[in-house]
């Protein structure tokens, strides 16, 4: 069994968070096709969260009393971009309104406040060797954008979406990503893992960094395992606290359950037997 730090990597990709929740003012909410990007000013937060780390977000007002008297708990989001400003970092969060928490967050307007804790968890680690192949599916493009910003044009970005409407966020990437959509309305009519397959044919020494829904991550994991390719996967799991207190977000790994908020959300693919466990992605 494992409860604490069993698979912590040698050098932790972790920027420490200030202790306690803090207010962050919403600066803008941008429509990006089917998704929105919420921009928040975080003058009390660190300027250098690692790509793949995440923040716990809640609206400072009217958090609760929605459908089913929810939301109650904050929601976890990886930042998709950090913009340095004189007053401190401005953080971008990619949102898809899928429940009472994300619905309230997408309703926020400039001038309203967020409660924010973070950055939390372990982010992506810089590739030890080879080219970086970044793979994002749907809203999982968020930490892939942050990593692409850090790695620059040497990294190759592959993105998969349901349709052209969801693919709008691909315009945020500085170097143009390769696209696949489920319905063929943008880029190739294929799965993003088909694009990955082709890239690995050309460059079997690449390192893969991926975030997306569990079936996509499982396909990435299986493909990389077959090819002997190193991969770092950013997972999602229902969280209450985000800092290791509740033990609620555990995922099964080869070394037992690990708290995704503390020893993830980025895990080495080699540590995982499958991404399709009960509750995955919720």
């Amino acid at each position: 069994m494992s409860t604490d730090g069993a698979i912590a990597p040698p050098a932790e990709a972790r920027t420490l968070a200030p202790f306690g929740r803090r207010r962050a003012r919403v600066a803008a909410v941008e429509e990006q096709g089917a998704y929105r990007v919420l921009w928040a000013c975080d003058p009390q937060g660190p300027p250098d969260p690692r790509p793949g780390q995440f923040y716990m977000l809640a609206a400072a007002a009217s958090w609760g009393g929605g459908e089913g008297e929810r939301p109650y708990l904050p929601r976890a989001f990886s930042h998709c971009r950090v913009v340095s400003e004189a007053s401190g970092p401005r953080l971008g969060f990619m949102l898809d309104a899928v429940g009472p928490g994300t619905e309230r967050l997408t309703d926020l307007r400039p001038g309203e406040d967020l409660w924010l804790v973070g950055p939390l968890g372990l982010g992506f680690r810089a590739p030890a060797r080879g080219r970086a192949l970044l793979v994002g599916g749907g809203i999982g493009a968020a930490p892939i954008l942050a990593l692409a910003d850090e790695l620059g044009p040497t990294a190759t970005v592959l993105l998969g979406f349901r349709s052209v409407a969801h693919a709008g966020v691909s315009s945020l990437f500085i170097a143009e990503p390769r696209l696949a959509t489920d319905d063929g309305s943008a880029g190739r009519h294929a799965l993003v893992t088909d694009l990955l397959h082709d890239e690995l044919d050309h460059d079997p020494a690449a390192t893969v960094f991926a975030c997306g829904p569990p079936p996509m991550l499982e396909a990435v994991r299986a493909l990389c395992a077959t090819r002997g390719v190193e991969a770092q996967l950013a997972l999602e799991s229902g969280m209450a606290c985000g800092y290791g207190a509740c033990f609620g977000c555990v995922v099964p790994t080869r070394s037992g359950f690990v708290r995704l908020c503390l020893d993830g959300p980025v895990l080495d693919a080699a540590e995982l037997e499958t991404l399709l466990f009960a509750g995955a992605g919720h």
Partner: protein
Amino acid sequence: MRTDNLPPSAGPIDLCGVELAGPILNASGTFDAIAARRAFGDAVLERFPFHAFVSKTVTLEPRAGNPPPRLWEAPAGLLNSIGLPNRGLEGFLRHDLPRLAELPAPLVVSVMGFDGNELERLVGTVGARPEVALIELNFSCPNVETGLEMGAEPAEAARAVAGVRALTDTPLLVKLSPSASDPPAVAAAAADAGADGIVLINTLRATALDPRTRRPWLGGGGGGLSGPAVRAVALGQVAGVAARVALPLIGMGGVASGAHAADLLAAGARAVAVGTESFRDPSAGYRIGDELAESLRRRSPPRPGASSE
């Protein structure tokens, strides 16, 4: 001892012979101080949220905990089915205890035994450690010998306390199960058997169904409900137990503000624990302690001889 790194308080309190700088504790299993230092660094120690720290429950053998999913958001609350993951007694003593002893507040260790023998080994071993100020007996568990929950019936609770009372001089707190049909009777039985304090309430038994399949959502089947949803239940049970036993009580259940803590103190609690609110704000205990101290200062009459400016 330094107290400027603890929540503000209206003054020290006595909890079963242990002096605490104030009345705010954490509920067991809702704040992992070791994990918090990994996420936030030593800032946790400079602004520690509790006047005493309660460990996650320790069992004799290591436990991996329940399969996921373990959480479900409820109306104004949270269902959890965590399953007491922990390193077991040996792992706790070797790995956790030295780190918990570095905290700036007295340490309460929560233990659970699945039979009388396990409970004896846990209390005997933990009670011999000088780092441990108090022991909390988590009675929300089935006794595998009798099939009854240790905290469900007065006789079960009395037998469990009596079995370990002579093993240590460390004060013993009994954490009641809110599922007992008569919590005040269980508290009275525990008091008669030698308990030094009573802790209540634990989570309420509850179930969540997957909206797509109408089958239980939580990997462990059922779960425990906490948060504001249980606050009124906690206030009622604390008042009921306070009316029946004279022991110090630690009240908890949905505490999210100084006013909620003041309510539990008014109902008869000596100290108050913050649980699920720490999930929403890691330093909630500090804020709640501050708000409580402020409200107590406002309410208390000026002391004789105090300057009245």
